[in-house]
């Protein structure tokens, strides 16, 4: 798999999701997969892109409550066929991948009424102790696709139980001018706000501040679009 092709396809896919959230119609996931011209080399990158964008590929169906076509729901399946999920994570990166995969597989199961997928091990292992909030918040940022309207689960519970660590980590990324990570954390801050968690940080100016500086990377713009929807300024 070509990493740069995968990242480029992920940006393309995230751009499609973003356009769908802004009312341009459906994402056309199956069409995105079928648009792959070379069925050997490029398809791996496209399927990798689906796995990279993760649960966000189905965001319009969650945010706009639009019906999910069976053809689009099936797009996630070949991505797991091509890139088998991590079943026994050992490294920190593999633990992030395992929880990212879990949220990716769980959302279509929730939308189609299928049985829930198996939950990975303890979320504390992937996030680490919240007292080390600078490191903890980076792991939280890496799992930003798990923070969507109506999301539940162990990682969501673990993050929303630590509002101070979340806000400290977010402010740290803003002060470091790492607006890519800040956009992912702003999504979590907006999610925590939407679920009624009391925060020592106002999410609305945070989202606007980061939004003015984050650039044009579609996956980060997608994080901010979800954040804006969650705080009601979309």
């Amino acid at each position, binding site marked *: *798999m070509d*990493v740069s092709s*995968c*990242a480029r396809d*992920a940006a393309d896919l995230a751009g499609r999701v973003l356009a769908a959230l802004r009312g341009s119609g459906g994402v056309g996931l*199956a069409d995105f*997969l*079928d648009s*792959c011209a070379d*069925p*050997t080399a490029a*398809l*791996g990158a496209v*399927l*990798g892109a689906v*796995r*990279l964008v*993760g649960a966000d590929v189905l965001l319009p169906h969650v945010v706009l409550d639009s019906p999910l076509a069976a053809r689009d729901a099936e*797009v996630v399946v*070949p991505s797991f*066929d*091509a*890139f*088998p999920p*991590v079943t026994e994570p050992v490294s*920190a*990166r*593999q633990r*992030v*991948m395992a929880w*990212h995969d879990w949220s990716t597989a769980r959302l279509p199961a929730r939308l189609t009424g299928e049985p829930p997928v198996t939950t990975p091990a303890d979320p504390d292992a992937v996030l680490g102790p919240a007292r080390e909030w600078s490191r903890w918040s*980076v792991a939280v*940022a*890496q799992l930003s696709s798990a923070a969507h309207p109506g999301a539940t689960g162990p990682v969501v519970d673990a993050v929303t139980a630590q509002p101070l660590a979340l806000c400290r980590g977010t402010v740290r*990324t803003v002060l*470091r*001018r*790492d607006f*890519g*990570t800040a956009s992912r954390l702003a999504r979590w801050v907006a999610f925590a706000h939407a679920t009624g968690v009391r925060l020592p940080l106002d999410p609305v100016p945070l989202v606007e501040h980061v939004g003015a500086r984050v650039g044009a990377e579609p996956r980060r713009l997608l994080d901010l679009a979800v954040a804006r929807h969650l705080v009601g300024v979309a």
Partner: protein
Amino acid sequence: MSVHILARPVAAPADLEQLGTLVAEPESAVADPPLPVPPASLVLLVVLSPSTPKEPGK
């Protein structure tokens, strides 16, 4: 028939590792804060301003 039904490549372990790297994207290196840049008009004013008057010789 759809392309994705015809071909389902199984990724190599190295591909999985690369995908894991993309998913677990680390935070970026520290960026420098914005440095103050004097406006051009202020620089011009300093350049064109008369020299500091000297005290009359004793």
